[in-house]
């Protein structure tokens, strides 16, 4: 009896978060609902075409986030480690694409006597394909060497050591890019055919909404890459080996799978996807600089957490979801567009606090346990 009495207060004292977390959640939820009510029902200043515009941009950016998030998820699924430098791999891909476009722009393919025509304007399809190939290859190489230099020696170390190493690698790559290519912000030179801002026009309520070519390219290509990756992971031998290593390294090694090679290839694949995302980012947003990978990297991590880290469809879904929230959120909640990054971060914190397994988390644990 006495023991019971004494242990009671202790029990309540220990579970601060049991009280705090619901309060925190209710506050966040209440704020969101209040703002939504204000903007959507009381004010009603935004018309349909604005929402469509935001929806389109959200889908496009969501595709990019999804591609990067898959990289996080693949690596986390296998190594249980946050590849903090993944955003920098994307930056490297973006730079590779930038240099390729600059190069193709400088080649003149016009017949003599005609006005000069650069390769990228004359053969836009080939140069875009080339840019994606080069960006993906170089980013894949970056991922490969990143793993080999910064992570492989730490395979057996406690979990936070690779994370510190990853933060270091991320800083190193950022600053190396800054020193190599100068801190200036560069404009991507798109081929004329897919110049930024040009696109198909749709009429909604007598208002023009432009679906840009770059946006369409980004969205379609990211979906294609995601499908390709999903098929690869589900159907091919490499994918099977990756799943085996993810669920149990030791047993996979006993079954004759070379774990090191598989981990290496995982990094190559995730690097290639990040490289593609980098080229898309450059083509669509038009800017590339040494810091370009940092925020998308963190947001893509948010997306991966959102969908349940370690889960590939979850990362795709999370990326799309985050892209939509990020573009619709500031308008829907009626807050300044400067704070769109805050929205992404707050979502990440809230998700991690209330549902660390993410939206599709349960599927993952069923599949793996």
């Amino acid at each position, binding site marked *: 009896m006495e023991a019971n009495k004494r242990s009671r207060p202790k029990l309540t004292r220990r579970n601060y978060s049991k009280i705090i977390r619901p309060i925190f959640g209710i506050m966040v939820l209440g704020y969101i609902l209040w703002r939504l009510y204000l903007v959507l029902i009381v004010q009603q200043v935004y018309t349909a075409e604005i929402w469509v515009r935001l929806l389109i941009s959200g889908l496009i950016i969501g595709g990019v986030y999804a591609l990067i998030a898959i990289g996080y998820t693949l690596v986390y699924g296998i190594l*249980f480690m946050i590849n903090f430098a993944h955003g920098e791999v994307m930056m490297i891909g973006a730079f590779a694409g930038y240099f390729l476009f600059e190069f193709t722009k400088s080649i003149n393919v016009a017949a003599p006597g005609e006005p000069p025509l650069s390769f990228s304007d004359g053969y836009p399809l080939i140069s875009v394909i080339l840019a994606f190939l080069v960006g993906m290859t170089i980013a894949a190489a970056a991922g490969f060497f990143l793993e080999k230099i910064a992570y492989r020696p730490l395979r057996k170390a406690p979990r*936070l050591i690779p994370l510190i*190493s990853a933060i*270091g690698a991320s800083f190193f790559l950022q600053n190396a890019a800054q*020193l190599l290519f100068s801190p200036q912000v560069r404009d991507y030179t798109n081929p004329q055919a897919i110049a930024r801002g040009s696109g198909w026009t749709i009429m909604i309520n007598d208002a023009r909404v432009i679906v840009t070519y770059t946006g369409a390219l980004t969205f379609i290509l990211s979906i294609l890459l995601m499908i390709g990756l999903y098929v690869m992971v589900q159907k091919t031998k490499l994918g099977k080996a990756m799943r085996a290593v993810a669920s149990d390294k030791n047993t996979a090694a006993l079954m004759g799978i070379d774990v090191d090679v598989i981990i290496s290839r995982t990094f190559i694949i995730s690097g290639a996807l990040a490289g593609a995302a980098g080229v898309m980012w450059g083509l669509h947003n038009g800017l590339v600089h040494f810091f370009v990978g940092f925020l998308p990297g963190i947001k893509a991590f948010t997306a991966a957490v959102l969908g349940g880290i370690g889960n590939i469809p979850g990362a795709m879904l999370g990326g799309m979801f985050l892209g939509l929230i990020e573009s619709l959120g500031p308008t829907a909640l009626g807050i300044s567009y400067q704070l769109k990054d*805050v929205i992404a971060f707050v979502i*990440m914190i809230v998700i*991690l606090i209330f549902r660390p397994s993410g939206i599709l988390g349960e599927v*993952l*644990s069923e599949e793996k346990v």
Partner: protein
Amino acid sequence: MNKDIIRASSRKGLIFGIVMIFLVLINFHIMAATMISKLLGTNVLRGSFPEVRFMIIFLVLYGLWVGWSAVSREGTATGKLFEGLIAGITTGALVALFGLILFYLLETQTDVRRYLTNLSFPSINIFLLGLNGVGIPVHLGLFTLTGLVGASLKVGIRSQLFTRTVQNIKSFVNNLKLRITSLLPAYVHKYGKYFFYLVMLFLLFLLPSRWGAYNNFVFGMVGLYVILGIGLNIMLGLSGQFMIGIAALFAMGAYSVALLNSPIPHGVMLGFWPSLVVGMLVAVLGGLLLGLPIMRLRGDYLAIVTLAFGEIIRILLNSDLLTDFTGGPRGIQNIQQPTFLARPFNDVSYAYLIIIAMAVSIFLYYRLENSRTGRAWLSIKEDTLVARATGVDVQKYKLLALCVGAAFAGLAGGIFAARNQFTGPNDHTLMVSINVLSVVIVGGMNSIPGIILGSFALRGLPELLRELETYRLLVFGALLVFMMIVRPEGLWPSSRPDLEEKGSIGLQENIETEGKEGRGNG
């Protein structure tokens, strides 16, 4: 066997060659040559280029290093020399190839600075040793030769004759030491340590008034980073919570002091000392508010959430939303200077303030570490489950660690803002958090001498050697990776025996159990 040697050493040479090319692309060779010329007493004017001979010294040193590190442990002396030679030739060939490209650029006067910002013509010229095309074979020859010499140096030093000589000298010195100490009276033995501390303390109190404002500024920076490092160490080293958002807590301290002492946004003039306390309290509150919801998160998730927290604070400070309240991107200017006994502060008094704050922090840290609380923190870090089973209130102590660490961060922030008479969002970026993390990790977790050494090495040295400033963050990144691979316990590790397996810094559970837990959760 022979093939293996060739393959391994040419691989090493290749890596060194790539590193050299990278160094040239980031203009490091010019910096190195300038430093060498300064060391040798020839001053180089700012903005001008060093002489070619210093470039040659740099290349020779690099080549010796190539040869030195190409030598493997096993094999005969000739085999080792061969390894050095092969590595040198590979490096030389790669560098010469690169030199050829640079020479082509120089000949055709192609300006690539639009893309590779550092590749200017004078820089290329110096890299080619002022010899244009002739510089290319010179590079090849130089690296081959120095590779061989470096390898032979290592072989010579590793040889038995040399080791024996070194041992003889060592034993001789030890003998001499013993003889001298036996001559000294016993009390020197007993109190010599304290005497040394006293001298150090005396110097510390004498120096600020002697060595000028700039050195005081640098010293103050180092001291503030020591305080921040202690704060982070309480979270990361003692209680094992990976916090990357310490810049946010730093910002809370800085903005509290700034807002309460500046005429512009609010016109509150509270005075420095009370506002410093307020700043610490605000930071503690921030730590508490951050800690309460995220207490349950595991290591790396915690890191990302705290990073996000730091970014949120920075973005909010930068946004229009808070411009009226915190000054927005322009920050807060004209912070009123503190007074002590009715005398206003100058750089010397700030240096003293920082010394005192540092001393108090170190004292408090030692008291905390050896207290019941400190033991509870360490037990949580080593094994949360066992700590809980033995009756440690894990959540309470984790929260306490965050709050105490935040108080230190707030203290540093407050002094920082007052000393600069300005604070703005750009003083509290992610860089600050990463800097503090580097200081703690590189110096050595849970080790005060380590943290002091870390902040001197990472904050003080780059300030004093201005040429290095450009490469500071690059080196930080590389150092973090390097330290994790080679020496995860830091430069000056703590004397407390590591309870976990060797080579770990002992953070929470090991991989296997956490991995399973991770799968269970998600």
